[in-house]
């Protein structure tokens, strides 16, 4: 009697381990911890050993506030006048559009040749290594290198910006191409379609949305780079005006106006990018 009762009224089984594990140990968790801690240690070391050239921080901050006040609250066109600044701004925008077009065309060609699912491994690997090296060199250094051969000016700026764009977009596009389902390419190959037919009839329509996204991201980067190249390599455009106003004539009112103009252009570029992206994603 008692035996059967025991078997009927069984206590509910408790799980074997008395504690619930909150954090599962894994390589990923350890790695995150290690990387974070080492980065923070490096930061701590750098900040305590930073060379401040004996600047009085309070004094400098006060000066900075005055400068920012002049820039953002009292912007004006300065001695250059608005028409000149608008022309320079237009040149910078054109420069970024031109280099993005060059980058997109060559970038797509190289991306097709570099993608693992399209070409032979050696050609692909070769292109990827060359592009990685080109990408590793900052745009400004490319512009300076070309300015020795072509002289300071637009041509050097265009070549310098294009080089970096091509390398960047090759990587971006080839990643999109490698994301394509292999069955699509195989089935076209079976029908006997030629290489470029496959590229333009199967690959291009599939990646067009991400192609457009990446191209517009690069356009925004190129606009920022066009300003940088104009300032540091003397290649003209709004970047040069910015450099002169803020570093030579110290006219911070004009600097403020130029910064506002640049921000306005980036907003417009972003707006256009969002609209075009939506159009291609909704098709």
């Amino acid at each position: 009697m008692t035996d059967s009762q025991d078997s009927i009224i069984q206590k509910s089984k408790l799980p074997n381990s008395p504690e619930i594990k909150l954090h599962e140990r894994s390589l990923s968790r350890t790695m995150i911890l290690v990387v974070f801690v080492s980065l923070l240690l490096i930061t701590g070391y750098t900040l305590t050993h930073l060379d401040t050239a004996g600047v009085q921080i309070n004094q400098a901050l006060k000066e900075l506030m005055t400068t920012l006040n002049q820039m953002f609250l009292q912007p004006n066109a300065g001695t250059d006048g608005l028409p000149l600044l608008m022309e320079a701004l237009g040149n910078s925008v054109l420069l970024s559009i031109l280099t993005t077009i060059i980058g997109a065309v060559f970038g797509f060609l190289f991306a097709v040749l570099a993608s693992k699912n399209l070409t032979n491994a050696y050609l692909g690997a070769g292109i990827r290594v060359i592009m990685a090296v080109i990408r590793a060199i900052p745009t400004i250094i490319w512009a300076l290198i070309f300015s020795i051969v072509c002289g300071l000016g637009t041509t050097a700026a265009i070549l310098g910006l294009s080089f970096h764009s091509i390398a960047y977009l090759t990587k971006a596009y080839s990643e999109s191409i490698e994301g394509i389902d292999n069955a699509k390419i195989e089935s076209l190959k079976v029908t006997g379609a030629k290489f470029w037919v496959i590229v333009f009839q199967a690959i291009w329509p599939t990646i067009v949305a991400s192609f457009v996204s990446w191209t517009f991201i690069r356009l925004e980067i190129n606009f920022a780079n066009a300003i940088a190249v104009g300032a540091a390599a003397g290649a003209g455009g709004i970047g040069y005006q910015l450099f002169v106003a803020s570093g030579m004539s110290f006219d911070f009112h004009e600097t403020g106006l130029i910064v506002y103009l640049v921000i306005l252009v980036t907003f417009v570029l972003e707006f256009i990018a969002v609209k075009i992206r939506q159009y291609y994603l909704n098709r």
Partner: protein
Amino acid sequence: MQSPIKYLSHKGWHQTAIIAIIGGIYILGSQILNFDNLNGLLAVPKAFAWLGVNFKPTAHSMQYFPRIWQKLIQTVLLAISSTMVAAIIAIFVALLGSKVTGINGFVQTIVRAIASFFRNIPLVAWSMILLFSFKQSDFTGFLALLLMSVGYLIRAFMEIIEDEASETMLALKATGASYFQVIFQAVLPQILPSILSWILYMIENNVRDATLVGILTGTGIGFIFDIYYKSFRFDAAGMTVLAIIFVVIALETISNQIRKVIL
């Protein structure tokens, strides 16, 4: 439904129009900017021939190596520290400003506006303004990179929170957990891998940008390249470029390996 022929002819017309517009912009643009396409194209092989002759580091240029290496390490350290400080600021601001964890609509709008403002001020402007007040020092370079990175990271972190943590947030709120419990026990641990991935990307980017900041503010590797370049010591400049290539590719490889493990 469209007939296939009509569809194809429409598609063909559409593509031709787009190519014509882009080609037109290109030709018009090169006219306005006085860009000679042929000479530009010819300059590329000339530039590389010139690079091969003049930028090749010689045995003589080895004497510059210790100085270049020291500046390069300094630049990398600066890039890492500015990114980390920016990340710490950005994560708190992003928590305040994201649609999921944010306080209210007003704060969210303010945060978004500030972030995009910081992001879009050109690096050149930051460098020059800071140079004026903080003089030629590493601290100036650090601040310029920091202010630039903050804007980017706030936006990136807000998008990460909104993409990855909205369901978790909802689920934990339903159990009655408090705001801070949800943030520290669920949201932060969940988004940590993506955040680290962005931090690594930002470090790579900042090493490259540090060259520009360096040329403008006279710090780090950019400054030393500028000196060699302007005093026509091209073999030393070439060595600097090789060192930059080495470090950037090494950083890229390391962060790709880390990403493979954590994501």
